[in-house]
């Protein structure tokens, strides 16, 4: 159980204690989305007295629980195909966009630039030292040490790993052929350690010199980690900032006709490692309208609230589409 889960349990305990006079909705799933839903549900409760309890149990269980009807909505970082949604009587829409950064710990190297060749080389275990050519080529001024690269990854199954390997699969053919996009990967790099949760990875990077790993932007920022500037599809080097994530989000192919089914990583412009997180709602659940009310409030009134916790708010146009989608599905 990670820290977030414990906090969530505590929160749950607190909310159960208070009288249930207003609507109360239960959700579970993606831990990636948890900070956003937490921020939203807090203001929602303050302003409307309606409770939203969201527990970060992981995308897999979010999908399972919502299908089983144990919760009013599920959170998943992995979109379900429209066919699967129809089969289980669910609707799906994105709620926020997040980014995954390459956080590293090399003393004296501030603005590490990683080309696609360098990233694939490190991930495939072919580039072993910090001063190997593909890395030094883009970092002429920096004094990169002849030290072995320590790769840090997630030890638990996670949507973050899925989104990250999805990006790698889009970017690199060899990766795509050998590994593909998965929630847990047998990483080829020999010199590696793993951390539990984004928080565990961030801590491992912080306390081990010459390490690099993939961490969601929120945790990297919170831990004050250095984040690499990486090459995108246009061969431009992009710094991970909310602005560059937004530039990428514009290209998200989020289409209501396909129930917004899309993996948005590796867009043509902007920061390339971005991912959307989705909400799954039963079409005829007894609280489904309340769930939609909550997300409408969140997306239309409090969308900016999630920026400080490391997300990119969905673009206006997408929110309009989502609202249309709700009306069409008869939930608004």
């Amino acid at each position: 159980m990670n820290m977030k889960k414990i906090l969530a349990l505590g929160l749950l305990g607190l909310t159960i204690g208070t009288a249930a006079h207003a609507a109360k909705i239960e959700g579970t799933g993606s831990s990636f989305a948890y900070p956003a839903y937490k921020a939203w549900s807090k203001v929602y409760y303050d302003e409307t007295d309606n409770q939203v309890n969201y527990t970060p149990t992981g995308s897999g269980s979010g999908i399972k629980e919502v299908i089983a009807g144990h919760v009013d909505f599920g959170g998943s970082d992995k979109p379900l195909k429209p066919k699967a949604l129809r089969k289980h009587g669910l609707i799906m829409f994105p709620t926020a966009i997040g980014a995954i950064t390459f956080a590293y710990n090399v003393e004296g190297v501030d603005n590490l630039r990683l080309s696609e060749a360098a990233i694939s080389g490190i991930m495939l275990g072919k580039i072993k030292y910090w001063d190997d050519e593909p890395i030094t080529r883009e970092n002429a001024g920096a004094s990169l040490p002849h030290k072995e690269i320590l790769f840090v990854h997630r030890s638990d199954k996670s949507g973050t790993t899925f989104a990250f390997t999805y990006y790698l699969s889009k970017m690199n053919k060899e990766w795509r052929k050998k590994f593909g996009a998965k929630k847990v990967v047998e990483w080829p790099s020999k010199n590696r350690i793993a951390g539990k949760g984004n928080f565990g990875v961030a801590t491992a990077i912080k306390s081990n010199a010459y390490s690099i790993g993939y961490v969601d932007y929120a945790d990297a920022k919170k831990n004050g980690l250095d984040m690499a500037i990486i090459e995108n599809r246009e061969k431009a080097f992009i710094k991970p900032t909310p602005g560059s994530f937004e530039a990428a989000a514009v290209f998200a192919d989020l289409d209501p006709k396909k129930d917004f089914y899309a993996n948005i990583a590796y867009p043509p412009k902007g920061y390339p490692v971005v991912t959307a997180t989705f909400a799954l709602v039963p079409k005829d659940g007894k609280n489904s309208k309340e769930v939609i009310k909550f997300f409408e409030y969140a997306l239309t009134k409090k969308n900016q609230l999630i920026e400080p916790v490391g997300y990119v708010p969905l673009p206006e146009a997408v929110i309009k589409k989502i609202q249309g989608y709700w009306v069409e599905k008869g939930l608004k």
Partner: protein
Amino acid sequence: MELIFKKLAQISASLLFVILAATTIVLYLSAKPAIQEFGAGFLFESRWGVEETKNVSEVVPNQELVVDGEDADDFMEDEDDFIDDEDFVTDDDTESETNDSEIIYGALVPIIGTIFSTLIAMLFSIPIAMGIAVFLSEIASATLAKPISIAIELLASIPSIIYGMWGLFYFGPFIADIFGGNTVSLLVAGLVLGVMVIPFMAALSRDAIGTVPDMLKESAYAMGATKLEVIKDVVFPYAKSGIIGSIILSFGRALGETMAVAFVIGGVYQFVGKVTDPTNSIPVVLANSFAESSGLSLSVLFYLALVLFVMSFMVIVVAKHYLLRRK
């Protein structure tokens, strides 16, 4: 009244067996698909969650075609055929059947990681715990023994996640400074486990030593035995079964400890070359994968849990048989 009491005690005791049997049955049933799939080879397979393509020559060129599409947009729009759909709901059921590859799971790395981390913990904790127990019951004055006893009981009540955090933030980097290697490794996990079980072992051993009759000790002293001789030849042999019992209990706890180890063992499916390498243990694999698993990958976890269950059971049976019965 007597009868009711007797019956209640009987029920309590038999409840234990019911729980044990129920656990075994549930574990076995849930693990069955994985047992059928992998059999006993599961125990000797070192790969975990690795896809093995059965028909390499046919599959690869196919993918190549898709990937090599000249048009970059085509590449973006294509069906995401490289996504690993182990989650049962992602697609309709027929699609996954056509897949020519299967995912290999093997328990060897976590089994060995579990055994080694527990052994390190025992090597580290037994001498220290014995020292504490002997000091408290034989050497320390009452005024000193009391606060130390309270401290031990306090340590025993610290939740394991606290030990995990402590290991991750402070103890791990400290060990890495001394022994080299990374801040998370088999060694760190073993030592954190050792620290965790010391209070248990010390408190139980102290109680066991406390049962040694004063008369025996006094007679030995009267014969001219030194303190060391009394402890070695009178106290330990007398309290032997209690002390071994405390070690077995602690061993069991170390074997199944999850949260603390999850943060410090490294979580990597890799054999250790040296003790400062990261690896994995069974409870950690369970904790890390459970929430996100379904279908066969979930069944594999139950299989792994069954393996741990049998391991603990065997250790306890063997230990009891050899260490306690032979007199």
